Structures are given as structure tokens and as C-alpha cells.
């Protein structure tokens, strides 16, 4: 099984970026992080468009970049398929010509077959002869994806591939992409802001903040235990409570206290709670006041205000009794569901 091993240090205008990750064949790794956090720079470095300051990139035993040995393969030598965030479709070529751009040197019949195949796979037949400026944003995105896939790259690098389409088409594109990724069995790195991409596509998740890879692991592992505050925020954790001190088996803060053991290392900590893990108790909980209700799929999301003004969010099943706005209650979390974040 071939994997893309990455361990690089990248120079940016405002910070130095560090990334160490392994992308496995047939697995999709979703790279999540705020804008300007170094995600696209990492993709560009993997594609060979930027030279890392130091480190090593290798696909199996084929070295793409090694600062010690002075190896830096050009993009064409790497055969990495990069789908650009703004598509970078060639404006003077038709959709079909864009798809066939990478197939030079192959015989004409094979080229035509390949173009036909990807036109069909991404439902682009109707616009095969159109120029990119005459098609919609969603169609451009599909053309860009088809062009990247038609090149039959050894690694797929996708920069926010589903960002500019409506939710129905996004769902369809994700499904299509999953089929293609499984069929092709290549390492895939997908950069996104969208948690849905993580839930629907990721086998592994990497969270990058200010150039640093804060968390990297399997989806289940990272989603349930982000470990890092910024990573938790990126992964959609809304209940984040700062801890002032640990004392007598409790974590104390201006919001109240919850049972938590003192961590071995000192430093600043936060408690993370998933909305479904809050329990309403009669006493000795965190005092809260119900502020708002909203529907959240199979749950009712209840917004509560704590005594220091912070808000927390609880998920309650629809068959559980609704609590009227202004109700005072006490909240607890079973110790096994409290997540400690640094």
C-alpha cells in the first residue's frame, strides 16, 4: 500500500508552517482550518508549486522533495492532481478541451474515450463545447474536478472543491467524488471549511491553525476528542468552558464547576462538552437559564445562559418535555463525556 508521507516546514509571510502527515491510498484525508491558516500553501507545496523551507515528501519510495538531498521534483514529474479553489479553467478552451488538456501524447481514440468517460461521469455532455465563461459556477466546479481526475493523478489534492455550489448539488458531488475516490484508490487530501465534507467524505481529519497541524487522526478519534481548543472550534464544538483551577476532583470556572481530574501537565485548559451529553439534574450542577429553542434535525437544540453570561447548547429529543424560556435548571456531564482541551 502506497502512502504519501509528508513532513515539511513551509515559509509564509506571517508565520512558519509545519506539517507532518501520512496520506494512505484509498483514504480521504480532510484538512480543516480557518482561512489564511496555511492549508492552501501545503497543497501547493505537495503539488510542487511551492518549495518548502525544509523537510521531505515521498510517495511510497519515490521522493518528491528532500531538502537534505536537494531533491525538488517539478509538478509534472510528481503527477499530483491539484484542483484549484478558483478552478483555473483555461478560458480559451471548451469544456471537452479542458478535460483533454492533460492527455497529450496519447493516441486520439484513447483521448476521446477518456474525455467522453469524464463528461459522462460528471454529467457534462450538454456543455462539452461551451467555454468556461458561459457555464455556471457549479458546472465550472464539476469541469475542474473532471479535468483533475481525467489526468489520472497519483495523488488527489482538492482545494475547497464543493464550496461554490448549492447544497443539493454539493451532496451529489460528494457522492460522485466518493465513488471516484474509491474506484481510483489514490491518496486524497481535501481542504475545506465545511464540516459536512468531514462527516461525508473523511477517513482521516487534519486540523491546521496558524500553520500548525493541531490534530491529525481518524474521523471518529478527532471528532470525539479534538484535544486542542482551536481544533475543537474548527470541528464545530460549541460548548467550550475555560477552567480556572482543578480542585478536589472538580474543574472550576466562572461558570461553576464540573467533575474532572487534574491533568498531569499544568497549563491552560478548557472543557469541551458535546450537546447530547448534558444531563439536567436537580442539584449540584452548573446553574443555567433556558434562553432559546431551535430545531436541530432529530433534536431540539436548547440554548442556556450560564451565570457568567456564557452560552451552552443542549440537544434534547423531541419526545422529552420542552422547557419554557426562563426556566432555571442545573446541568451536569458524566465524567467520561467531558473532553479536556488545551
Amino acid at each position, binding site marked *: 500500500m502506497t502512502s504519501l508521507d509528508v513532513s515539511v516546514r513551509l515559509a509564509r509571510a506571517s508565520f512558519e508552517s509545519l506539517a507532518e502527515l501520512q496520506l494512505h491510498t484509498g483514504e480521504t484525508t480532510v484538512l480543516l482550518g480557518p482561512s489564511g491558516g496555511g492549508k492552501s500553501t501545503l497543497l501547493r507545496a505537495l503539488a510542487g508549486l511551492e518549495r518548502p523551507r525544509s523537510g521531505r515528501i515521498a510517495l511510497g519510495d519515490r521522493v518528491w522533495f528532500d531538502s537534505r538531498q536537494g531533491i525538488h521534483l517539478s*509538478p509534472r514529474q510528481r503527477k499530483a492532481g491539484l484542483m484549484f479553489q478558483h478552478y*483555473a479553467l*483555461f478560458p480559451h478552451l471548451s469544456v471537452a478541451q479542458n478535460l483533454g*488538456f492533460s492527455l*497529450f501524447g496519447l493516441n486520439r481514440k484513447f483521448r476521446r474515450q477518456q474525455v467522453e468517460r469524464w463528461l459522462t461521469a460528471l454529467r457534462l455532455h450538454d456543455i462539452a463545447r461551451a467555454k468556461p465563461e458561459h457555464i455556471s459556477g457549479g458546472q465550472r466546479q464539476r469541469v475542474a474536478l473532471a479535468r483533475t481526475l481525467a489526468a489520472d493523478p497519483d495523488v488527489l489534492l482538492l482545494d475547497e472543491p464543493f464550496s461554490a455550489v448549492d447544497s443539493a448539488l454539493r451532496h451529489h458531488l460528494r457522492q460522485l467524488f466518493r465513488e471516484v475516490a474509491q474506484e481510483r484508490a489514490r491518496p486524497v487530501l481535501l481542504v475545506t471549511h465545511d464540516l459536512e465534507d468531514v462527516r461525508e467524505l473523511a477517513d482521516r481529519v487534519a486540523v491546521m491553525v496558524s500553520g500548525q497541524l493541531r490534530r491529525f487522526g481518524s474521523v471518529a478519534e478527532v471528532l470525539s476528542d479534538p484535544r486542542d481548543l482551536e481544533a475543537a472550534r474548527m470541528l464545530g464544538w460549541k460548548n467550550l468552558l475555560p477552567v480556572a483551577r482543578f480542585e478536589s476532583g472538580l474543574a472550576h470556572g466562572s461558570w461553576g464547576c464540573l467533575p474532572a481530574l487534574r491533568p498531569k501537565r499544568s497549563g491552560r485548559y478548557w472543557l469541551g462538552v458535546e450537546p447530547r451529553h448534558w444531563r439536567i439534574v436537580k442539584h449540584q450542577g452548573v446553574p443555567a437559564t433556558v434562553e432559546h429553542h431551535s430545531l436541530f434535525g432529530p433534536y431540539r437544540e436548547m440554548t442556556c445562559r450560564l451565570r457568567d453570561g456564557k452560552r451552552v447548547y443542549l440537544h434534547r429529543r423531541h419526545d422529552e418535555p420542552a422547557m419554557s424560556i426562563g426556566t432555571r435548571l442545573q446541568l451536569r456531564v458524566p465524567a467520561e463525556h467531558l473532553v479536556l482541551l488545551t
Partner: protein
Amino acid sequence: MSVLWTHCAPAPFGLTLKVVLAMMLCQLILGVGLAWLLSRPSLPGRLVWEGAISLPLVFPPIAIGFFLLLLLGRRGPLGHILHDSLGVEVVFSPLGVYLAALIAGLPLIVKPVQAAMETSAAELAEAAYVLGRGRIATFFLVVVPSVHAAILTGLALAIGRALGEVGITLMLGGNIVGQTETLSLAIYNRVLDGDFDCATQLSLLLGGGSLLLFGLMQWLSRSRRQGG
């Protein structure tokens, strides 16, 4: 009318036509090539090159012509080498007229093409590299076609400038009737001679030619954009 034509136009018209045709080729190759080089942030001494090429836009043409005369004259540091080792005479020869047109028009093609390459062609070129193309193929298959409108506009401006060039041409070409007299210089000479009929005819010819050329470039640019 035909008497006037045979009396006024043949020699200057012939030289100007040759200058226009030569400039179409030279400005296209040199202008687009330089724009591509200058659009690369990694080019050593980029600012110096940009400044040198843009100089004719801000420096008085007659002064540029004078400095070039000193540089390329038979006793000038470069002219003396060209003359002694290659037997090439730049000053007061048709070659001086071509050089004047090239220098005057170059920034007018380089600047817009460079700007277009920096804004729209850079990412397209990267896409082509990632899709397996080399630098030369990318330049001809992606970069040039994607900035064709800027190339045609720049070419029209550069040739228009070459048609109207007087200052540098006067210094380098020497305004020798029958040899280095362009249409612009011919108008100037006819006015000095008091031959206003000739000057009018030549002005109409030059102005009409410039407008025709500009219209042709605009049409080409639009039809390529619409048709592909």
C-alpha cells in the same frame, strides 16, 4: 490627387509600412517575451528591467533619442563596437528608424500584457504545469491565448506609437529625405517647406492608417473573445 500622391508619399510611405510590418513581428516576440519574464516575481533585477522598459513613457523622446545618439553614434561606446566589429551603422540609417520605433512602442505592449499575465495567467500556468505541461508548451498553449486581448491592444498601441514617433526617430534616423524620412517626419518637413497640401494628405494617410490598424486589432480581439 495622384500627382500629389506621387509627389508626397512614396518614399516615406514605403519606409513607414516597413517599420509597421517589422514592429508587428518585433513587438509581438520581444514585447510578449519580456512581459512573460517581467511577470515572474523571481526574475533577478526585475525592478531595474521594468524601469528601463518604461523609460520612454516618462522621459522626453527627444532626450532619449539624444542619449541613444551618444551611445550608438560611430564614436559612442556601443556604436563604435557595432561599426568596427560588425560593420553595422545604426545612427542616420533605416536601422535607427526601426530601433526608435521599437524603443518607443515597447512599454505600450509590455505593460498591459505583463499586467494581464500577473493577474489571470499565473494560476492558469500553474494549472497547466500540474496537468503535466512544460514551460514552453504552457507559454504557447495557455499563457498567450489567455492574454490575447491584452496582446492585441498592446500591439495596436505600440504600432500606433511607432507610426507617430518623431523625437527618437529624428535623433537616430537623422531625417534624411528619401532614406530615413517616415510619414511623421515627412509631415513635419512639408510644413517647414510650406507645402500644406502635401502635409494634409500625409496627415490624413497617417491618421487613417492608425485608426484602421486600431480598429482591426479591436475587431480581432473581440471576435477571438466571442468565438473562442
